[in-house]
Structure formats: structure tokens, C-alpha cells
């Protein structure tokens, strides 16, 4: 094991639980129904300090680390995974700049990201078989004093709301595999955010495709080294996987609690169905798997805080979350029977949300390939 929560981390977790009860849970249902971006909740998250959780104190952040971040994501997701997803997307971008940015970039960008003045996002995926390979692959051509970005990114979170995008492009000269990361301001000429994608779940968390039409980025906005983007994208996806697993855990924790409460109220054959072994087996299985996934997610987060490699552990978290998420929601709905399937009950939203937390950001070769190759 790599972690044991400190008193401060437990305080952060209970503080966020209180925050969620007050400011996030009351919005969750209406957010799901109207799908509007939860501006008010994001402002509250910024005031609470959540947007600067992983930012070093010298840049205005709390420097509370990734374990605190992942625990907070679970707490938020217990009420609204869509709100948590906004934080995750922002923090992954912030984490990239904190981890790979130079002193000038950190000093210029991190204070605004930590305070919430600027929202962050990461643009990774493209419409081709792999990064840099499709017709619309994002290519960075050398230009006087910098690069011109041309192409498109798909499924970009916080699209239209972010002020800063961490963008991965194939930089020329290159062989198509060598990625370079750039920090791109949302206001740059040539950026066009497409229509917001209508998704099954996570309503209110905006994703869209973004096209880049000769968008100029200076050399000062290159994140890390030229052709050094592959390791950054690996780190980015691994961090996102851990955080999204925490989203899944939060959703499942709420679902199993809801199903257990229902089972105590629902009477069949003269006694509540919570006494039936078939129901107990379903609830127990979900609760146990949820607990295991939580521990693995927090463990991976602790590795990040310790500066240790965490990509394989992150892949394991992703795999566990994939297995946990939709199966658990099916089980929870089963416990509630026909009522559970109704949009009137909370489980319907959770069922749709867990599809978002488990299926997005899932390249075909991840996570099984990474895990299998790591077995010595």
C-alpha cells in the first residue's frame, strides 16, 4: 500500500462532503434535466479552493496533492459526477502545466488556474486511428517564432468554457508519432469550438470538437520539449483515469446506498426485500467492489504525490472502474426493479452518468495492454 490518509486529508474529505451537501447536491437533478453548464457550482468550487488543490502554494494553490484531489472527486461525484468531471478536466490541465511547465509558464498560468479565474482543459483525442494519423490530425508546422496548429481535436472537456487548453499535436519535422504539447489560449485566432455534444450522461459537463485553423502558438507556449509530448500524454491519460475512476466510485457509492435504502422499505411476502439473500448478494458485491476500487484509486493517487511511476496502477484502476461501473448500476437497478428503471428515481441519472465516467477517454489499447505488458 502506498497511502494512509493524513488527518488533513481526512479533514479535506469531510470539508468537501459538507461543501457538496450545501452547494452541489441541490443542483444535481436540475443539472441533469436542463444540461446547462453549472457556472454557479464552478464559482463555488473556486471559492472553496478546489480548483487549486494540486497547484503549489507559491503559485496561489493549496498544494494539497493528488490524494486529496481524488478523494474530493469521489465526494463531488456522490452528488454530481458532471460537476466532478469539470474539476477533473481542469485539474488534469493544471497538473500538466505544474508537472511539465517551465518557471515562466507556471508563474504566468498557474495563479489564474488555481484561483479559478481561468478554467483549464486538455485536448488529446483525434478522429483518426491514433494520434497524428487521421485526415484531421492536429499538425504543428514550424513558423517564424513558433508553430501553426492545423487540424482538429474531438471530445474536448470543458469546451467553450476553458480559457487554456493543453493541446497535443504532431510537430513537424516528425514521423507521425512524435507528439508535442502546447498551451493554447482559448482566445487565439483560428480556434473554433464546435457544437456541444449531446451525451447520454454527465449533463452539464460540456464536451465538443475543436478545430484549429493555423492557430499560432509561440515557442514559449510549448509544454515540455519538442517531440516530448508522448510521455506527457501518457501521464495525462493516467491521471485522468485515476480521477475518472474516483468519479465512478462516487456514483456507485451513491447508487448502492440508494438501492440499500430502497430494499429496506420495499416489502414482499411480508418482509422487506433487504432480508432476501438474492438482494443481499447483489448489494454486498457492489459495495465490496466499490470499496476495492476506491482503495486502488487512492493508492494510485498517493503514488503521484510520491513522484513514483503510476501509469500501470492507473491502468488497473481504469480496468477495475470499467468492470465496477456499469455492472454495479445494473445490479442497483435490479434491486429496485421497475422503479429503479424509472427516470423518477435517482438511479437512472447515475446509470447514464456512469457510462460517461467509464467510457470516455478510453483508447483501445488502454488499460489492458499496459497492464499485460507490465507483468514480469
Amino acid at each position, binding site marked *: 500500500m502506498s497511502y494512509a490518509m493524513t488527518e*488533513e486529508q481526512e479533514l479535506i474529505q469531510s470539508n468537501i462532503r459538507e461543501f457538496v451537501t450545501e452547494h452541489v447536491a441541490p443542483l444535481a437533478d436540475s443539472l441533469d434535466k436542463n444540461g446547462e453548464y453549472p457556472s454557479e457550482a464552478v464559482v463555488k468550487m473556486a471559492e472553496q*479552493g*478546489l480548483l487549486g488543490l494540486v497547484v503549489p502554494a507559491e503559485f496561489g494553490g493549496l498544494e494539497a496533492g493528488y490524494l486529496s484531489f481524488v478523494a474530493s472527486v469521489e465526494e463531488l461525484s456522490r452528488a454530481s459526477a458532471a460537476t466532478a468531471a469539470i474539476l477533473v478536466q481542469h485539474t488534469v490541465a493544471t497538473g500538466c502545466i505544474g508537472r511539465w511547465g517551465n518557471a515562466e509558464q507556471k508563474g504566468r498560468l498557474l495563479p489564474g488556474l488555481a484561483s479559478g479565474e481561468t478554467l483549464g482543459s486538455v485536448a488529446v483525442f483525434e478522429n483518426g486511428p491514433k494520434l497524428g494519423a487521421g485526415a484531421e490530425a492536429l499538425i504543428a508546422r514550424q513558423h517564424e517564432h513558433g508553430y501553426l496548429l492545423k487540424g482538429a481535436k474531438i471530445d474536448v472537456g470543458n469546451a467553450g468554457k476553458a480559457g487554456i487548453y493543453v493541446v497535443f499535436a504532431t510537430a513537424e519535422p516528425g514521423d507521425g508519432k512524435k507528439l508535442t504539447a502546447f498551451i493554447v489560449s482559448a482566445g487565439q485566432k483560428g480556434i473554433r469550438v464546435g457544437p456541444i455534444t449531446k451525451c447520454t450522461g454527465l449533463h452539464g459537463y460540456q464536451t465538443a470538437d475543436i478545430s484549429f485553423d493555423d492557430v499560432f502558438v509561440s515557442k514559449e507556449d510549448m509544454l515540455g520539449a519538442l517531440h516530448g509530448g508522448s510521455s506527457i500524454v501518457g501521464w495525462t491519460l493516467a491521471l485522468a483515469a485515476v480521477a475518472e475512476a474516483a468519479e465512478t466510485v462516487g456514483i456507485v457509492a451513491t447508487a448502492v446506498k440508494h438501492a440499500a435504502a430502497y430494499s429496506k422499505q420495499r416489502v414482499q411476502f411480508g418482509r422487506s426485500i433487504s432480508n432476501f439473500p438474492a438482494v443481499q448478494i447483489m448489494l454486498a458485491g457492489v459495495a465490496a467492489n466499490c470499496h476495492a476500487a476506491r482503495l486502488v484509486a487512492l493508492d494510485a493517487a498517493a503514488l503521484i504525490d510520491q513522484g513514483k511511476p503510476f501509469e500501470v496502477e492507473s491502468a488497473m484502476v481504469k480496468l477495475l472502474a470499467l468492470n465496477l461501473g456499469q455492472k454495479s448500476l445494473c445490479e442497483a437497478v435490479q434491486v429496485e426493479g421497475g422503479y429503479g428503471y424509472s427516470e423518477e428515481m435517482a438511479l437512472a441519472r447515475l446509470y447514464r452518468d456512469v457510462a460517461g465516467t467509464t467510457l470516455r477517454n478510453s483508447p483501445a489499447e488502454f488499460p489492458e495492454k499496459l497492464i499485460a505488458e507490465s507483468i514480469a
Partner: protein
Amino acid sequence: MPKCLVCYKWTLDEQDIKIEPEDLSLDSSRAKGKISDFDRNAIEEAALLVEKNGGAVDALSYGTASVKQSLKDALSRGPGKAFWIGDASAEAADACVTANVLAAAIRKLGQYDLILCGEGSSDLYNQQTAPRLAALLGFPCLSFVNKLSVDGEVVTATRKLEDCVETVTVKSPVVISVLSEINKPRIPSLKQVLGASKKPNEEVKIADLGLKPEDLHPKAMRKSVKGFVMQRKNVVYKESSAADNIAKLKVSLASEGLC
């Protein structure tokens, strides 16, 4: 500028307490601690007064060894320093013992203008700490307070009583117990949560308070605690028409004075 002391209790979170269906005993083995709800209002009110008038807020708590777990939580909510008395005597302490210990500690800590408490604790809700404390210290006591202001030495409070609302003024020092409606306790920011560990706290040893053994001997001994479970009546009306069922339901509710 008032110098305030808030007395708070570290209680078990009632949401985590399970009632065993067989004998209605309470299982608190998995219950976490929390600052008693009304005491949060007291802390918030002291913080608001100091934000408005200047001055300082300290916090004081008497409990078992677990009270130490409360310090960062309490300090994140406004107080600049926390004093704590962790002693096994708190396990069986009644309101009398609690007041004896707190009063002795306050005498030792020095002069405070306002001593604030919650109206009652989340667990026992005896509503006795503030009046007993005031009596022991020889200070006036204002209970059931839902509005509070300070102007120099003059403290003005609105008290919500059973059949009226009265506004009173007293000269400090004074002991005040507040109702939950006096304010809405803020949720500390994460910066305040993390900053709490940098604030000072000090243990006050019960042995240093000059208390006699009888001061720590509870006058009321709790013999048992049982949970309360609302029992459903499980009455089912099986008349052939809905109108008859409703009529029967109406009669039943009327017989219990519910309509």
C-alpha cells in the same frame, strides 16, 4: 473589541449511529466525531462578531481523549487558538461536571468578554452548560439568543422565548447560548482547513484546575440509552370502493387528532 471564548462539544455524528433492531441498543462503533450542531452556530457567531468589531476568538472543549481530533476542525471555523481538556471523566460527565470543568478552565485561561455556547448539544441536548457556567462564574446568562450585537462593553441580544421575543442588554462579561437560527455556519474554505494546522492549540490538564473529586462526580448517571424507531401501524383498508377507504382513513386520522 470583544474577546470571545466559544465552548464546544465534540459529539458522535448521529447519522453514523445504527440502532440494532433486536434490542434498540445503539451501535456507534463506526460513528465519526463532529462539532455539535448548535456549537457550530456559536463558533460562527463569535467569528462574525470579531469580523465586525475586531477582537479575538478562542475555543475550548472538554471531552475524552478523542476531543483532540476536533481541534483542526474547530480552528478552521474561525477561532485563533483552541484549548482542550481531554480526560476520561468526560465519558460519564453530566451537565454539572461539564460546567465545573469548563468554569475552572475559564478562570485559569483569563478574562473573556463573551463566552458563547450552543443552546444544547447534538447528543444530549440538556441545555444546561451555559446557565450553569454563568452561575459558577458569576456572570449574567443570556439563553435562547437568535440575534447578537456588541457595542463596547454593552451586549445586546434578542431572545426567542416560548411566548415572546425579548431584547435585552447586559454589560460584559456574559455567558450566551445561541439558537441554530442565529446564523448559518459557513463551510470553511480548504485554505482555512489547511491553515488550521498552523494555529496554536494548548492542552489544559484537568489536574491543574484545582477541582475537588466531587466536582468530577456526576449527579445524574445514565443507566441505558435506547434508540427510538417509529413503528408503522400497517393498517390496510380493503373496502371495495376508494371512497369508503378514504372515509375510513379520515375517521382513523381524526381519532388520532391528525385532521
